[in-house]
């Protein structure tokens, strides 16, 4: 007699429970939501409000299932998106339970009662969960015979986000996102019962609703675009993309954001050779599912009317730039550069927005074709101390060895020094907030005032005078022993931003702090290409892979890989940006090869202008005309990121590769242009394509860090403001007058207000506007009182009406004159 | 004819051009190039109901050397392309090409690797006729429009240059309007 083999008894591990879903036994971790357990089994329960990264709400009731506990069925179907699994639970979804199925269909019918039938004109039509589920589970006709509820539409929540309340199913994804993830409660539920609707404080006033948002604040968010993406119906739409195309007409291509150093994953949707929109991509290691509005909406710079599309060569007789063929332009550029090289030499300013491959081409071009170390990508304030810091602490770090987004989320303490996460790296800000909200990460900011980022990360501010950050860091041990103690905890992180280069001694102080406490140190630049440019040696002291130019062994290694004769690489460190500009003015340098650099970003724009005028030969590789173009002898147009492949290295050192989105536009990446230019100058770069450049770079394995000397610069004296003066604190706002944000009126409308900030005591007697001036120029802005130290004024660095570098010629920590600006 | 190339520009040619063009347009002999469904409509056009003989075209020629007008009727595959070009090359000058139907004109709905995306990639096309397939009236309409173009064709390079410089173009008028009974 044969016996049926006994069912092997499955042990339920600790922390797990066993339950039955649709007759199938499942083991699930405690605390898991039913809807996810079912999903792992392959049963998709329809839902609208549920989102894995938002707290459960149970708002839409679409995910009803039948649940039985301890043999007793629950009296009514339960929402599976709010119910956690329990031992011995028996769950029947719509697959096996007619009750659950009927309940879901009923909810669908109720949701559709007030939903307009305007799918043909709705931007969500074609990718709409409500549409899909109505088609899959809904009734073919409606039993509702009365008049549908209507609202005036669309209602602008901001210049960028439009709300159509008729379509809303009140799932509260948007309100939960703004409340939980972004921390900007700009959108909220208003009214009750049948009148319940989504709105803002402003809309509540306009339409005279009985209640206001919880905060009552006007719209202000850098992350509002995400609500458009997670809206399960077409209630929230973007003004930029509105009615521009339909999802079934778009081709999607995964891409990487080119705006900041976070390297967020994106999805670029295009049709007929034109990018229509960008959406957040999913990468749990980096940006999870969120991106900032700049990454989402700022892409039309690539289609700007003024974009350079053909090479230009300056006519020697008329002095005008004239269109030329690539062959002519490259020959002219090669000829001029070779002459300048054989004269006093050529400097290279690649700029901080290059892909890894393009930056490598610049680095190699400088060494091979121009035979110089005069290359510096830093198109911003910089210092020799920073160079040492980058060589000793930054180059070569990877997610395996350095700080990561995940590490930020799990850190017990994060100290932000001279770094404004929300403005400079929004994805970092979201992680900090997530850590602070979910894991009680303590966030301490050493800055000037309680910025929105400080309060939204539930942070603590250690206010200091601009330029006094180094002393503040030094003083931690003495004045903030609890912070010092917390920094010694396992996993504590110190983040430092690009502004640190303007504070003498800050990098050294941070290095010492990190050595003393064991806290991990991460440098978060503002631009996407900075980290990659360091790695490929687009710096005067570094060769690719973090090799020092002064190290003979490292040089010969590079010479071997590049197939050069021994001793071909110059062994003396080159000049930095300011050094090169000075040398051009004093005629110690003849030529200049410039990438995407705006002279107004440089520490001294006036010097930059003088240098450009003094240079005997300037070659510009640019996408859009700039001040450099006016002085350039040859202009070579290059491709925007959508039209080339490549990779960015984000601040973690993570390689963020992307392939070409728009093919066949004929635009060439920098590496290809430089390669051909190199051939004209008898130097083979082997960077014809980004893939070739990456392959060539891979042969130069990075050298382990730690070989370079750490920076050791004494603290600069803390700037002091005299009578009628103040110390300037300044940094860029996320949405400002940046070149990559041109042609985006809707996005520009969501920028933060451009105001100057001072402490109450310092602002006394100045009236409602303040004029900040130096001997170069002045900026007059509305004055707002904030908790700055006395004698400090804060200005946005590059916003409309406040271009600090260009107008004042000063930076963070400079002493400026303050006067009343009139009331206007 | 060849003779006109050597004649001086002047009084004679304006009238001669008209006569020659009149003769040419009224005795167009088509080289059939039926490749698909459009060819069925083309055959219908040759039949008694539409009677292409009314326009002096009844002799559908299987000998390219006796033909002036190539009616490419149907989708041209990459494999057929060289054959088509060879037939075209064998036709004697002057010669014209009519792309009949959307497939011959642009590839039509066959946007794929096998089909030539428009016969104008291989031979110069004088008249594009949309439709899938075009009905016989449409073919007649296209032929009549081509007649109008032939009638206006300049004789000799000098007159061609003059006409190009003047920017003059034959007006394309729907045949039912142009030839409507008054």
């Amino acid at each position, binding site marked *: 007699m044969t016996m049926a083999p006994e069912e092997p008894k499955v042990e339920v591990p600790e922390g797990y429970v066993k339950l039955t879903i649709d007759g199938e036994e499942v083991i699930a971790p405690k605390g898991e939501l039913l809807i996810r357990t079912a999903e792992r089994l392959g049963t998709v329960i329809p839902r609208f409000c549920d989102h894995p990264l938002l707290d459960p709400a149970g708002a839409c009731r679409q995910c009803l299932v039948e649940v039985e506990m301890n043999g007793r069925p629950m009296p009514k179907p339960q929402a599976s998106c709010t119910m956690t699994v329990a031992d011995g639970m028996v769950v029947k979804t719509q697959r096996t339970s007619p009750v659950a199925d009927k309940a879901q269909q009923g909810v669908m019918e109720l949701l559709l009662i007030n939903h307009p039938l*305007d799918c*043909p*004109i709705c931007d969500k*039509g074609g990718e709409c969960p409500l549409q899909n589920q109505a088609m899959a589970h809904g009734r073919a006709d409606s039993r509702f015979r009365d008049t549908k509820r209507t609202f005036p*539409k*669309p209602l602008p929540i901001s210049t960028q986000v439009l709300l159509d309340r008729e379509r809303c199913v009140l799932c509260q994804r948007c309100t939960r996102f703004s409340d939980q993830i972004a921390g900007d409660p700009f959108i909220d539920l208003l009214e009750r019962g049948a009148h319940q609707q989504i709105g803002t404080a402003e809309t509540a006033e306009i339409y005279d609703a009985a209640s206001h948002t919880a905060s009552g604040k006007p719209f202000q968010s850098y992350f509002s675009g995400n609500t458009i993406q997670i809206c399960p119906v077409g209630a929230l739409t973007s003004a930029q993309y*509105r*009615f*521009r*195309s*339909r999802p*079934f*007409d778009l081709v999607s291509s995964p891409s990487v954001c080119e705006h900041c150093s976070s390297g967020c994953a994106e999805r670029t949707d295009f049709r*007929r050779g034109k990018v229509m929109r960008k959406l957040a991509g999913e990468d749990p290691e980096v940006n999870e599912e969120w991106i900032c509005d700049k990454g989402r909406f700022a892409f039309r710079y690539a289609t700007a009317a003024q974009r350079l599309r053909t090479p230009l060569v300056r006519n020697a007789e008329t002095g005008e730039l004239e269109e030329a063929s690539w062959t002519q332009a490259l020959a002219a550029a090669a000829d001029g550069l070779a002459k300048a090289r054989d004269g006093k030499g050529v400097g290279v300013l690649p700029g901080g927005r290059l892909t890894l491959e393009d930056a490598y081409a610049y680095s190699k071009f400088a060494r091979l074709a121009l035979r110089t170390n005069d290359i510096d990508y830093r198109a911003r304030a910089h210092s020799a101390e920073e160079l040492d810091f980058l060589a000793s602490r930054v180059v070569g770090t990877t997610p395996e060895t350095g700080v990561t987004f995940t590490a930020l989320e799990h850190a017990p303490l994060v100290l932000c020094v001279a770094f404004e996460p929300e403005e400079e790296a929004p994805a970092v800000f979201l992680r900090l907030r997530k850590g602070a909200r979910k894991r009680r990460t303590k966030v301490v900011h050493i800055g000037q005032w309680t910025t929105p980022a400080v309060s939204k990360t539930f942070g603590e501010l250690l206010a200091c005078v601009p330029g006094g950050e180094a002393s503040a860091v030094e003083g931690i041990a003495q004045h903030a022993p609890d912070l010092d103690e917390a920094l010694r905890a396992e996993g504590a992180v110190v983040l430092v931003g690009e502004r640190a280069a303007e504070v003498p001694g800050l990098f050294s102080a941070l290095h010492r702090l990190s050595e003393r406490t064991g806290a991990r140190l991460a440098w978060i630049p503002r631009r996407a290409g900075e980290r990659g440019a360091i790695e490929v040696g687009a710096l005067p002291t570094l060769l690719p892979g973090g090799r020092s130019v002064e190290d003979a062994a490292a040089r010969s290694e590079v010479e071997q890989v590049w197939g050069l004769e021994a001793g071909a690489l110059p062994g003396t460190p080159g000049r930095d940006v300011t050094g090169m500009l000075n040398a051009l003015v004093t005629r110690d340098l003849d030529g200049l090869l410039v990438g995407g650099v705006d002279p107004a970003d440089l520490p001294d724009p006036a010097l930059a202008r003088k240098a450009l005028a003094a240079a005997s030969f300037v070659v510009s590789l640019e996408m859009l005309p700039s001040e450099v173009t006016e002085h350039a002898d040859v202009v070579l147009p290059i491709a925007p990121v959508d039209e080339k492949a490549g990779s960015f290295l984000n601040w973690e050192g993570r390689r963020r590769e992307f392939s070409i989105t728009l093919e066949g536009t004929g635009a060439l990446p920098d590496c290809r242009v430089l390669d051909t230019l190199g051939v004209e100058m008898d130097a083979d770069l082997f960077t014809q394509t980004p893939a070739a450049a990456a392959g060539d770079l891979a042969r130069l394995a990075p050298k382990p860090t730690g070989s370079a000397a750490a920076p050791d610069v004494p603290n600069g004296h803390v700037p002091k403001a005299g009578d009628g003066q103040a110390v300037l604190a300044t940094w860029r706002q996320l949405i400002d007058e940046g070149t990559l944000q041109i042609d985006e009126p809707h996005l520009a409308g969501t920028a933060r207000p451009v105001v100057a900030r001072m402490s109450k005591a310092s602002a006394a007697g100045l009236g409602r506007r303040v004029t900040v001036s130096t001997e170069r120029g002045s900026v007059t802005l509305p004055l707002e009182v904030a908790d700055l130290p006395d004698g400090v004024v804060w200005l946005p660095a590059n916003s409309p009406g406040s271009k600090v570098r260009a107008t004042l010629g000063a930076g963070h920590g400079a002493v400026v004159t303050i006067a009343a600006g009139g009331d206007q | 004819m060849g003779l006109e190339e050597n004649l001086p520009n002047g009084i004679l040619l304006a009238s001669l051009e008209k006569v020659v063009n009149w003769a040419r347009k009224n005795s167009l002999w088509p080289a059939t190039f039926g490749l698909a469904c459009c060819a069925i409509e083309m055959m219908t056009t040759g039949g*008694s*109901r*539409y*009677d292409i003989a*009314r326009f002096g075209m009844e002799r559908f020629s299987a000998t390219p050397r006796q033909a002036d007008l190539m009616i490419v009727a149907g989708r041209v595959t990459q494999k057929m392309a060289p054959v088509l070009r060879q037939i075209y090359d064998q036709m004697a000058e002057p010669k014209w090409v009519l792309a009949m139907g*959307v497939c011959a*004109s*642009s*590839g*039509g*709905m066959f*946007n794929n690797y096998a089909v030539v995306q*428009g016969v*104008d990639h291989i031979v110069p096309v*004088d*008249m*594009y*006729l*949309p*439709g*899938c397939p*075009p*009905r*016989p*009236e*449409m073919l*007649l*309409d*296209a032929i*009549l*429009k081509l007649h109008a*173009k032939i009638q206006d064709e300049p004789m000799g390079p000098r007159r061609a240059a003059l006409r190009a410089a003047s920017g003059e173009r*034959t007006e*394309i008028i*729907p*045949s*039912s309007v*142009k*030839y*409507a*009974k008054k």
Partner: protein
Amino acid sequence: MFDALKGFGVTFSNMFKKVATEEYPEIGAPAAPRYHGRHQLNRHPDGLEKCVGCELCAWACPADAIFVEGGDNTEEERYSPGERYGKDYQINYLRCIGCGLCVEACPTRSLTMINFYELADDNRQDLIYTKEDLLAPLLPGMEQPPHPMRLGDNEQDYYVNGPELARDRGVPSGETVETSEEKAMQ
């Protein structure tokens, strides 16, 4: 001997039979009432466009012959009732196979086909018909957009009461707005 006469007899007798040949083009361009000729973008009785730029026609098109881009109606510049209108509308007649799936897909009955078929042209550019080429001619009572909604406060009025509104506006009776081009041809 008789054979030859018999042969001529066939020819001779045919001279008295009805001629089968259609006298195109002299008799005009005949077509069945529902013939799939070229497209027409229809108008509401007050002249506003029916097209809302939804691109469903482009989606339905098996030959990818249609390109549509939507646009925003504003109070100052209104082309159709409601929020959205077709800003750019192109049909490539060298791809179009006249299947009519686009007409079936159109949710507002904006796109229909008329009987006109004499489309042949001597260059590919001119056979891409744009919105100006495709829009229906203005009938009595219609005015050229952009102009405000004349027949109601919102698009509901246009869609729910279309035929009555057309009559009130003086569109000739027995003539639907969709078939105007047909008449206009003659």
